[in-house]
C-alpha cells in the first residue's frame, strides 16, 4: 500500500520524531509506515489523516485492492 506520509511530513518541515509525538506513536512506527513496511491500524490512519487535514484515501492508497 502506497502512502503520502513522508511527502506530507516533509512538506510541513516535520521530523519523524515530531510527527510520531503528535500522533502518539514511536518514531519507528512512522518510519515503517513511510517505507510501506507497516500498514497502520484504522485509528492511527485516521489520526494521521486528521493531523495532515486530509482524508484517509488521500494519505493511503491501496489502488482499489480492498474493493
Amino acid at each position, binding site marked *: 500500500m502506497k502512502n503520502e506520509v513522508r511527502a506530507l511530513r516533509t512538506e510541513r518541515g516535520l521530523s519523524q520524531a515530531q510527527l510520531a509525538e503528535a500522533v*502518539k*506513536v*514511536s*518514531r*519507528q*512506527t512512522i518510519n*515503517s509506515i513511510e517505507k510501506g513496511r*507497516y500498514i*497502520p*491500524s484504522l485509528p*492511527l490512519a485516521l489520526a494521521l489523516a486528521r493531523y495532515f487535514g486530509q482524508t484517509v484515501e488521500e494519505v493511503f492508497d491501496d489502488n482499489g485492492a480492498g474493493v
Partner: protein
Amino acid sequence: MTTVPVYRTKWFLPAFSVALGVACAAAFWAGGDGGSAVFALALMTAFGLVFLLGGRSDLVRGLRGDGRDEYWERLDIHATALAGLVLISVVIGMCLWEWAHGRSGEPYTQLGAIAGVAYIAALALLRWRS
C-alpha cells in the same frame, strides 16, 4: 487521565527478571546446587539491569513495554509466534528422536500435547470473543 498498566512501565521487566532469578536460585538451592543458584541469580539480575538501564535503545523500550505502540505490539505478536514455532518444532523433533531410540518420548509427548491443546483452546476462545 489514562492509567499505564504495571506491565507497561519500565520497572516491570527488570523486576520480573530479578524475581525469576530468585525463583531459579531457590530451586537450585533446594536441589543442593549453591553454585548454580548464585550464577542464575547473578545472570538474571544482570539481564534486569540491562533492561532497566538500556532505555535509550528502541529495542529495549519495546521489550520493556514502556515504548510500545501498535507497531511494537505487532512485532511482539509475530516474535512470540515465531518463538512458539521454534519451540514446538524442537519438541516434535525431540519426540521423534526419543521414539527412534526406543524410549517413550517423555516429556516431549506431554509438552507437544499441551502446546496443541493450548493452541486450539486459544483459537476457540479468541474466535468466541471476537
